[in-house]
C-alpha cells in the first residue's frame, strides 16, 4: 500500500505545518513516510505545494501528473492549478476561499470563475469554507487545521490519535484553538 497526498495553496497559508501534523501521525502508526516541500522564492505569496507519501515502503519523495490520491487545496484556484496531479479517481478537499494573485490584484488577469464547480465536475470533492469556520472559532490563522480535520476524515485514518499528535506538534498556546479547529473541520465533512 502506498498513498500520496498533495497539499496546495499560497505561500504563508500554513500548508507545511498541516503536512507536519499529518506526517507525525503517520509515523506513530508505523508507516514509512516521505514529505517534500519547497522553500525560498515561491514562499513570497507564490503558489506552493507540499507532498506527503506514506505506505509500507516509500521511495520517491515527489510524484508527477495523475499520481495523487488526495488533494487538500487551501485556495480554490490552486486546486485547479494542481488538478492534473490528482488521479482520475482522486479525492479533493477544497477550501472555498479565493486569494488574489499579484497578477489579478494588479488587474493584469481575471481571477477565474467556477473553480470549485470545475473540480466537482471532475473529481470526488469535499468543499468547505474553512476561512469562515476559522473566523467563527476566533482566529483566521487556524484555517489550515480546519482543513486538516476535514482531510483526516476523508483519508480514513481513524485509528490515529490526531488530538495527541496536534498537542505535540503545534505551539502550546495554540493547542486548544487547533483542537477546536480540527473538530470543526471533521464536522464539516458529511
Amino acid at each position: 500500500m502506498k498513498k500520496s497526498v498533495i497539499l496546495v495553496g499560497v505561500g504563508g497559508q500554513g500548508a507545511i505545518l498541516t503536512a507536519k501534523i499529518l506526517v507525525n501521525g503517520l509515523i506513530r502508526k508505523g508507516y514509512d513516510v516521505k514529505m517534500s516541500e519547497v522553500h525560498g522564492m515561491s514562499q513570497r505569496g507564490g503558489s506552493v505545494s507540499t507532498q506527503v507519501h506514506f505506505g509500507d515502503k516509500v521511495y520517491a519523495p515527489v510524484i508527477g501528473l495523475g499520481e495523487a490520491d488526495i488533494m487538500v487545496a487551501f485556495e480554490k484556484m490552486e486546486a485547479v492549478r494542481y488538478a492534473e496531479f490528482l488521479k482520475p479517481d482522486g479525492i479533493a478537499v477544497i477550501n472555498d476561499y479565493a486569494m488574489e494573485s499579484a497578477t489579478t490584484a494588479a488587474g493584469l488577469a481575471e481571477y477565474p470563475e467556477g473553480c470549485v464547480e470545475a473540480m466537482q465536475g471532475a473529481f470526488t470533492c469535499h468543499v468547505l469554507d474553512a476561512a469562515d469556520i476559522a473566523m467563527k472559532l476566533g482566529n483566521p490563522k487556524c484555517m489550515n487545521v480546519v482543513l486538516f480535520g476535514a482531510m483526516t476524515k476523508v483519508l480514513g485514518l481513524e485509528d490515529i490519535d490526531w488530538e495527541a499528535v496536534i498537542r505535540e506538534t503545534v505551539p502550546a498556546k495554540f493547542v486548544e484553538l487547533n483542537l477546536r479547529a480540527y473538530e470543526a473541520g471533521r464536522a464539516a465533512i458529511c
Partner: protein
Amino acid sequence: MKVLLSGNEAIARGAYEAGVRLGAAYPGTPSTEIFEQLPQYKDALYCEWAPNEKVATEVAYGASIAGLRSITAMKHVGLNVAADPMFTAAYNGVNGGFVIVTADDPSMHSSQNEQDNRYYARAAKIALVEPSDSQECKDFLREAYKISEQFDMPVLFRTTTRVSHSKSLVELGERTEVEPKPYKRDLFKNNCAPANAYRKHPKVEQMLAALAEYGNTCPLNKVEMGDGEVGVITASIAYQYAKEVFPEGTSFLKLGLTFPLPMDLIRDFASKVKTLYVIEELEGFMEQQIKAAGIDCIGKEKVSPLYELNPQRLRQMLFGTEPETKELPVKAVSRPPALCPGCPHRGFFYVMSKRRDYVIAGDIGCYTLGAVPPLGAMDTCVCMGAGFSVGAGMAKAFELMGENKKVFGVVGDSTFFHSGMTGAAEILYNKARIIPVVLDNHITGMTGHQDNPGSGYNLLGEVAAAIPIEKVLASFGFENILIVDPQDLTAMQKAVDDALASQVPAAIICRRPCLLIKRMKHEKALCAVDTAKCIGCRKCLSVGCPALNFKNKKSAIDPTLCVGCTVCAQVCPVGAIARKED
C-alpha cells in the same frame, strides 16, 4: 530511535556525528537549513555565516589545514563563487577532513540556472559523494570525511533540492570525537606556488586513481541483484524514482561515490544484465563516462536532461506511459511570488517604475521581485554582486555609444558584503556613470532571514560587529551618500533626483528593516479604502501589493494581509486610502 529529518537537517546531524569542529557557509536555497541547524550543536562545534561562499570555503579549508574536520555548504551557484579555493585545495590536499556541500536545484525552484555541479568534482579532480535520502545524508557524510583524510583531498558532497528538502526517517547515531591532526608548517603541501603545484599534479592523479580503485569496494556503492534481465545504474534522488518505476526483478547498482566512477564494479554489473540503463537527473554525467569506457547503456536518449525527474516523468520517458489526468474547463492564472505587504523594497521600485527610460541592473534576493509586474522595474538579473558591475559595464557601453542613459545598480545589504563591494570599487576606480543603490533591509531575506555582516548578529545569535554600509562606501570615495527611508515616497524620489544631479560620486542607501525579522518590534497598522472617495483609477494597484485588489470598480484592501505601510495611500491621487487610526 528514528526521527523525521530533511536532508539538510540530516547533513547538520551528520557533521555533528562525524566529529566536525568548524563550519562556515553563506546561505542559499536549497542549502540554507544545513547551517541553520548547526547552532544546536554549538557545544561540540563552531559555525558561522561568512560574507560569501568563497570566504566560507577558505575559512573551512583553513580549519582543515590547521587540523580540524570542517564543512562548508552552499547552493550550486555558490560553488561558482567558491570554485577558486576548491580547485587548489585539490592540489594541496587536507589535514583534517574537509567536505564541501553543494545543493543543486533541478527545475530552478529558487535559482537562476540548472547547472549540474557533479562536473565540478571531475574538473577539480576530487571525490564526489551523493546521498539519495536523509539517512544517507547523515551516514554518507561520515564516510566522506574518511575519504577526505584517506585520499588527502576535499570531498564534494552533492544534494539536490529534493534530497535537501524532502523529509524521511533517520536513525540517529552518536558523535565520534576526532582528535585534531597536529599542525606543522609545510611549505610544500600548503603552498601552491607554481613550482610546488607542478610537482603536486602527479599526486592528484595518483590519488584519483587510488580512489577509483577504492570505489569498487567502497560501502557507498552497492549492488541489488535481481533476475539479470534489466539493470539500472543510478545515484542520488534518481535512485528513489527508478525504484518506483522499474518492475520487480530489476537489478540496481546504486552509487554513492559517483566520481571517480568504479569502472570494474560497473563493468561487472553490466556483464550480468541483458539491458543496462543509466538513470540520472540533469546531465548524462555517469552515462558519458560509462559509454566512453565502451559499455553499452540507455540513458539520455530517453531521459531528458531538463528539469527534475519524478516517477511519472521517468515512466513516460522510458516506457511511453502517458499520465492519466483530467482536463478542467477552467484554467488557473499565474500566481508569481511578490514583494510582501509592507516590504521596504516596494517604495524604491515604485519610484523607479515611473521612469521606464532608467536602466536598472538588479541582483539576487527578494528585491529580484522588483522585476515582477506591475512594478517591472529591473533590466537585468545575473548573479550575486552583478547589480553594480553588470550595471557598470552597461553604463560604460552606453557612454561609448554616446547614449545618455541613467543607470542604477541595485544590490541588497547581504549582497553588498557578498560581492557588491568589489563592484562599488569598480564604479569609482573606472568612473562608471552609474548610481549604486543598496537596499538595506538588515537581513538576508529570500533565503529565510539569516544574519550578515551588516545586521549586528552572527549565526549563533550573538551580538556581532554591524559594519555600516555608508562608511564602507564613504571610505571608498563616494562623497554624496543619500540614506533614505524607501517607504517615504517623496523622500525616495528626492534621493533619486539628488543622486542624478550630484556633481560628486553619489550612492543611495534605502534603509528600512524587513518586517519579517523576528527579533525586531514592528509597528503594524491597517490601511483601508474609503469607497466614497475612491475614483477607481487603479493607481494604487501599480505598487504591486498582495493586500490590494479591485472589486466593484473600487480598490479594496485585504485586512488579513495589510500591515499599514501606506505606500498605496501615498500614491492615491484623491486621498481615498488612509491608515485606520490616523
